[in-house]
């Protein structure tokens, strides 16, 4: 399965790199969201800085919706789905590969947004260990959940509108956990944040397993 996963991850990443949509469109969009928050909330620096964790993760979620949508779109073109089914590739491998590709893309976006938040909102980085681990756990959780839900809406005309509706309520706990972890880290009280990091890790594992199990059914049933 792991070889299959690597195969699929490689393919997805190559498609994304070649098309450059992520770099040229999704990344600017996510920074734009950060900027819009400043317009909405009045750039009194104190306010933006205080809210930075929440605004950051909200921007990440919006960008994730786009990344996941694109990941699902790769398999919608003619015959790709059938080819996947017939090729004998383990569906769980397809899932892990796609989720991994989405995670890599998301991590890139998160670094970019992190720089954005430090620069635009005047945030002082602190508690690096917690920040990195929480971000990793949250990213895996978002990628795994998103890939599963992406398969649920794959191939549909309404994919673009249905995906956010289905995915965002499910990701609310991830948003809660990631924001709390970041807040704790930035406030210099990482001990408060580690339990939330644990929650994120739990969610990541849960959805990774669920996705791996369910992907086969979805590939066949559609």
């Amino acid at each position, binding site marked *: 399965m792991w070889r299959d996963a690597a195969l699929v991850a490689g393919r997805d990443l190559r498609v994304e790199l070649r098309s450059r949509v992520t770099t040229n469109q999704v990344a600017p969009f996510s920074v734009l969201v950060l900027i819009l928050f400043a317009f909405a909330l009045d750039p009194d620096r104190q306010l933006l800085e205080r809210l930075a964790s929440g605004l950051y993760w909200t921007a990440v979620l919006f960008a994730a919706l786009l990344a996941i949508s694109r990941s699902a779109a790769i398999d919608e073109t003619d015959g790709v789905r059938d080819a996947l089914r017939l090729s004998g590739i383990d569906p769980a491998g397809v899932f892990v590969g796609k989720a991994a590709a989405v995670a890599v893309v998301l991590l890139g976006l998160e670094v970019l947004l992190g720089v954005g938040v430090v620069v635009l909102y005047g945030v002082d980085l602190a508690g690096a260990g917690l920040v990195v681990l929480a971000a990793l756990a949250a990213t895996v959780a978002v990628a795994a959940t998103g890939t599963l839900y992406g398969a649920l*809406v794959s191939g*549909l005309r309404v994919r673009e509108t249905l995906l956010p509706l*289905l995915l965002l309520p499910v990701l609310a*706990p991830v948003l*809660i956990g990631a924001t709390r972890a970041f807040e704790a880290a930035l406030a210099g009280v990482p001990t408060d944040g580690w339990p939330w990091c644990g*929650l994120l890790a739990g969610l990541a594992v849960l959805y990774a397993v669920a996705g791996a199990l*369910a992907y086969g*059914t*979805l590939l066949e*049933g559609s």
Partner: protein
Amino acid sequence: MTSPTSTTVTGTPYGDGRAPDTPRAAGRVAPGNTGSRASRVLGILALGSIVLLVLYGLVWSPPDAEMADSVRLMYIHVPAASFLYAGCFITTVASAMWLRRRTPGWDALAGASAEISLLFAAITLGTGSLWGRPTWGTYWTWDARLTSTALLTALLVGYLALRRLDVDPTARSTRAAVLGLLLVPNVIIVNRSVEWWRSLHQRSTLVKLDPTIEGQMLVALMVGFLAVGLVFTWLLVHRFRVAWLEYQSERLDLDLALAERRAEAGHAGEARESTPA
């Protein structure tokens, strides 16, 4: 299986809803609706319990010491919330059963239960905020219970949206079943996370009826559970039957379309044969 006949001016291919002229040997006549003797009995019991609830809830039980009369909203709110969760549970179990057995009844049950759960979610949120206004001064607070219920409502809306897709019925049912299977786990995760989160900022302002609730108020609450439960069940029975009929109707439409297609192909074949080469 009846062969498709052309629709008459007055009716549908299967008659116009009156009892067909089939022999009554079995003693049963097809109704033109989703009722049955069992569901009628259920309906009457439900109505009766509603009357009891109105009496107990609005008249016979006393106002609460702290909340005054707004506690009367709880006699609907608490049971509605409970059956909301029950409905989600039914949807998840039915989704799991569909994935195992692939019989349409389970899919119909999953969808029916989710729709009724959404109705009850609306009632839960509505009565909850109407209770909140005189008690806390606002229609909405971000306490754990209300927030979780709001997210649960979003989950249900999403699930029902997925069910309305215009795709091949089996694909639709498969996707809906996977989503439905995830419903209860999502609800549990959301509830726990939100509770944990909100407990950091507020002492729990969960709606907890005084555990020493007793007397007429306890009776009113019990009657509330009874009435809401019977209404839920009655609605579920009928909505399930409607879903079943929808499935049958769709299946028959498909059969009809297939038969017509074959008929066309047959005629085209004959035409080709009859024209001289």
